[in-house]
């Protein structure tokens, strides 16, 4: 930073300036991702490695959460539907809720906590221990190796994890419905697939891709720009989770408006 830059008076206030500078930096980070993603060398091995870490290693947590969400949501919805004699609609209700909103949202929030924080902390610690500088001085592009590979991996894996969560949540729901309403698996799933449309699945996949990209890029951005030693690493991990979750909710809200608009056409 030159002296001139440092002496400049803040445009609004220091806080506002910091916020908008951060926003501009984040935007240029996203632009850099899109400009470097197609430039060789392609780090396929690292992308696969990250896909494994993000996808396979998240399975136990995702399985448990998805199952509980399906089971609990079914049990909580039953009394209300039963009041109107509509307990037989449970599979339809659950499938719509899970596929349209809960599956993507629950998976993304869990991934933001687990994957986003781990990416932020890992890259942050590499930054403060000069490992990123070491890559750079060995004529390797650290952005390509660390950021592009991780963002691609989250973008590919979150939609897959969402599909898996949907399935597990529906299985949880089936167990409850089967135990209480004596509905067979084939009847349950026939009702499930009759209720959901192509638009539901398409919008679910599209927003999962967006959620995955958000988790990856926010984690990488916070890690890549961390400072102040170990304290900075903690802050990077923490803010990666908080910002990812906030953006996921905003994206969920926006995608809901878009899908509803399409549905109304």
């Amino acid at each position, binding site marked *: 930073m030159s002296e001139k830059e440092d002496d400049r008076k803040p445009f609004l206030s220091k806080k506002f300036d910091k916020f908008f500078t951060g926003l501009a930096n984040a935007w240029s980070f996203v632009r850099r991702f899109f400009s470097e993603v197609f430039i060789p060398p392609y780090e396929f091995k690292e992308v696969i490695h990250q896909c494994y870490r993000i996808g396979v290693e998240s399975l136990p947590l995702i399985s448990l959460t998805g199952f509980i969400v399906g089971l609990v949501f079914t049990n909580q919805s039953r009394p209300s539907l039963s009041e109107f004699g509509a307990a037989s609609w449970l599979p339809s209700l659950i499938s719509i809720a899970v596929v349209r909103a809960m599956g993507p949202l629950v998976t993304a929030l869990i991934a933001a906590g687990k994957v986003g924080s781990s990416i932020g902390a890992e890259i942050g610690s590499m930054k403060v*221990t000069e490992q990123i500088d*070491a890559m750079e001085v060995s004529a390797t592009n650290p952005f390509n190796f660390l950021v592009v590979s991780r963002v691609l991996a989250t973008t590919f894996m979150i939609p897959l994890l969402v599909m898996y969560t949907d399935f597990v949540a529906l299985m949880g729901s089936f167990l409850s419905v089967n135990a209480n309403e004596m509905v067979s698996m084939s009847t349950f799933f026939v009702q499930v697939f009759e209720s959901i449309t192509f638009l539901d699945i398409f919008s679910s996949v599209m927003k999962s891709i967006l959620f995955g990209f958000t988790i990856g890029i926010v984690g990488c951005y916070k890690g890549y720009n961390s400072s102040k030693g170990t304290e900075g690493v903690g802050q990077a991990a923490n803010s990666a989770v908080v910002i990812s979750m906030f953006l996921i909710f905003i994206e969920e809200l926006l995608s809901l408006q878009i899908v509803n608009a399409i549905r109304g056409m």
Partner: protein
Amino acid sequence: MEEKVVEIKGLKKSFGDLKVLQGVDLDLHKGENLVVLGKSGSGKSVLIKIMVGLLRQDAGMMQVLGQEVSTLNTKALNALRLKIGFSFQNSALYDSMTVRENMEFPLVRNVKNLTRGEITKKIEELLDSVGLPQSINQMPSELSGGQKKRIGVARTLILNPEIMLYDEPTAGLDPITCSEINNLIIEVKERFNTSSIVITHDLTCAKDTGDRMAVLLDGQFKAMGTFEEVFTHADDQRVKSFYDYNFIHS
């Protein structure tokens, strides 16, 4: 006089209000080990980071192997970086990779058409030359500070650099390991025919490894020459006190 591999003139660098380098002039000659001495925070590391393009100077000239670093594009800068080995203060080994993967990392990305056997042979040779042939499959967390430094040096040597930059090579190490690292620096120079800049505040390291010293104080070199020239005939009181603190007080 040997040819200059690094030529620095009027180099200035500030971070906000903090003026770190204030018109630094320095030459490194081929085959020479130059030690840059100075207090912590005096800008020694900044100097070598500008040399490899990790930082950019505010003013002045930084020519490495005949090229002005600040004017190079990414491709040319990367080509230059291949000729410079940078040993970091904390070794900067990639902690999620084994020693083998750490050493492979720069090699497979910068040298094409190497077979698996050739890569392994090169790694084994270098690990042997730093005295750690058995550590090939270990993780960095399983190594001691001195071993990490050695592996860090071996990793930089894998691309056959012409210039070696050592950032505080003996910081945080016990006296015996320090002496081993000093010997390694001399061995690297002789065996790999490199020119080196050693950044340190450790006078024992400076005396053992350096052909020439340069003392950085207040953003400028206050004394330059052999160890005896710098410390025996020092005019600047702070240069003298630097010697006193290292050899008398400790």
